[in-house]
């Protein structure tokens, strides 16, 4: 067992592009679930719209990447309005079912044969982020500290990703300390009380859905850029559940909850993965019990178990405050 390698991998994952992307998605979801009490189970749908927004614009239509951002944002706002209109007046679990259905609709449509000309069908699209990498200020070589090393391209993605995370975390802080944020929290605590104070609860919920969805879209954009490809099945429901696990781990309704949660989540995922792989390779675990492909499945088993145990025994996560979570809503 090469512990140096395992620890290096885990640390690289904690600060890597995936961690930044999921921190972004979770910041958006935190606005929905943590601050407003909206059960959005379709965050991945917003991410997919961002990813397809840029890839279709560049790879299919031949326009600049930056127009793609606008397309993704426009699509996301439309989706949020479509989802919110029927469900935000209803009980919380209706939004849950409708959002999960909508995110699957996005995926099904993107991977359908009839859309192959536009979205590339089940193969997806690739090589559309050259404009992003063209403005990379870091010359070639390797960047990092000690065990953790990234390529110049990777380092550029990471820098932009974590800068966005920092900006949006700051934005969340400012918003939540503004009157607007206080209304959202009061809706989470008691809708009727907020309504009796003359607040248009429906409109505030809608604003929260749109803003959080846009942050999710940005996460999708960064995800697509970091991989230089989109494939429809990357954007399926488990991604949303990852984001939930991340905010619950870090601390729901906390500005740094999603950030810390994402770093720990990816470090743990990477740690178990590499450690198990090495243990299997070294023969500590007999292949009759676990083989190479089963290692990949083990991470999901642990993820599910972790999510359950966390929710049962420490629903406030690491940074959270138990009084600040809308878990008893009805």
């Amino acid at each position: 067992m090469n512990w140096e390698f395992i620890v290096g991998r885990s640390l690289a994952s904690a600060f890597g592009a995936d961690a930044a992307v999921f921190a972004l998605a979770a910041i958006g979801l935190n606005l929905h679930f943590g601050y407003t009490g909206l059960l959005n189970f379709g965050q991945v749908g917003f991410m997919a719209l961002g990813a397809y927004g840029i890839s279709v614009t560049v790879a299919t239509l031949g326009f600049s990447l930056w127009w793609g951002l606008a397309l993704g944002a426009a699509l996301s706002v439309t989706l949020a309005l479509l989802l919110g209109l029927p469900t935000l007046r209803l009980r919380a679990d209706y939004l849950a079912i409708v959002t999960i259905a909508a995110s699957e609709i996005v995926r099904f449509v993107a991977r359908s044969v009839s859309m192959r000309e536009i979205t590339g069908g089940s193969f997806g699209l690739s090589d559309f982020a050259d404009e992003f990498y063209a403005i990379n200020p870091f010359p070639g070589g390797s960047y990092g500290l000690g065990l953790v090393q990234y390529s110049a391209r990777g380092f550029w993605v990471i820098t932009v990703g974590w800068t966005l995370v920092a900006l949006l975390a700051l934005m969340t802080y400012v918003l939540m300390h503004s009157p607007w944020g206080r209304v959202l929290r009061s809706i989470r605590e008691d809708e009727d009380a907020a309504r009796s104070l003359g607040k248009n609860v429906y409109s505030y919920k809608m604003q929260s859905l749109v803003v959080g969805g846009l942050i999710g879209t940005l996460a999708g954009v960064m995800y697509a850029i970091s991989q230089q490809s989109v494939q429809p099945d990357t954007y399926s429901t488990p991604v949303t559940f990852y984001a939930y696990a991340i905010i619950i781990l870090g601390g729901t309704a906390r500005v740094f909850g999603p950030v810390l949660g994402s770093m720990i989540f990816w470090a743990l995922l990477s740690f178990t993965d590499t450690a198990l792989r090495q243990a299997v390779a070294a023969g500590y675990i007999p292949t009759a019990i676990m083989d190479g492909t089963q290692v990949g499945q083990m991470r999901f088993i642990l993820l599910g178990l972790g999510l359950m145990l966390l929710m049962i025994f420490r629903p406030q996560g690491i940074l959270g405050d138990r009084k600040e979570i809308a878990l008893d809503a009805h």
Partner: protein
Amino acid sequence: MLRMMLLAAVACLLLLPATIAHAQEEEGGEAIRGTIVQRPEEGDPVPVPGVDITVSTADGEEVGTVTTTEDGSYALELPGPGDYSATLVAETLPEDVQLTDPDRATLEFTIRPGQSRPLLYPLGEAESAGGRFAAFMSRALQLAVEGIKFGLIIAMTAVGLSLIFGTTGLVNFAHGELVTFGAIAAWVVNVTLGVHFFLATIIAIAIGAVAGGLLDRGLWAPLRRRGTGLIAMLVISIGLSIFLRYTFLYFFGGRTRPYGQYAVQRAIEIGPIGIAPKDIVAIVLSLLVLGGVGLVLQRTKIGKAMRAVADNRDLAESSGINVERVILFVWMFGGGLATLGGVMLGLGEQVSWQMGFQLLLLMFAGVTLGGLGTAYGALLGSLVVGLFIQLSTLVISPELKNVGALLVLILILLVRPQGILGQAERIG
């Protein structure tokens, strides 16, 4: 330094195919070839002579036209490898013959160096307008039967989901895993232990019911006692769903597997539709089971208690109903029904580790359509969803059929959020 080495490696990779391609290019011989034949429903294929096929390059430049010979065959030399498109000129076909898919008159393809590529143009008999209508109706009828079968499967699994929601308020995202668990349990008893399919199904239903009961006693009942909130429980059910699904994958593997008996059956013709005997049995059996469910809910003491708790838990409790016991029964009931639904689904489409999860959203659609928390609403809503999914393939591509169902779910919430049989008060 590293960069230089990488560059060198990439250059090698780029050059390699080029040299191979060069070697092949010298052989030449790029061409398309094929035979245009009409395949009548009975008898041997008939060659179709005198049909023109026009070939152009990807840029639209015409390469040439070839006409089929007496035996229906054709071949055309191409100038070199690359992208081409070939169009069958429909006007040159005999009057009683047409392409089975008129959209595929033009085929786009890539020719590799030295490749002589066959092209396929399926032909069929030209149909009169009346014949087309009859074909459409018989297809609609066939899809309706399949829709009823699928709807009954959804209904069987959704009754439990709806009753669990009604009695405990839990939106159980792990209900699909009960379906998968049941199907896999039946598979293990049937294939691994070698018990006949029917007996295996009965044993699996018992196992599924016990599993449902254990889930309630081991997980959900203690959580209710702790006063865990509904949304927290919803998130826990998602964790449970992921945990169980990948545990199935871990032990059962990613392949789909058939049951030991009745896996493949020839369809028998009844009027305009063809249906396998196992599907008839499945439909009759589900109707009987669902009728039985109705009787249990309507006539027996425990059934009445279930509906009472679903309707108003506090009132039921204060009238002396042991609510926890009723909930335990609901879970066992739901587990058994989910198992039967899973086995029937597995009989039609084989058993896989995520079959239940793929069904979950459709269950939600059925339950929401019928009215969350009601047992009969779930039945009705699921039937509508099943029928809708199958019949929608008449107009939309089959791969998008679930999209239609999910869109309807969203529309229903816009118009009548309480569902067909739900009461308006419970959704506030």
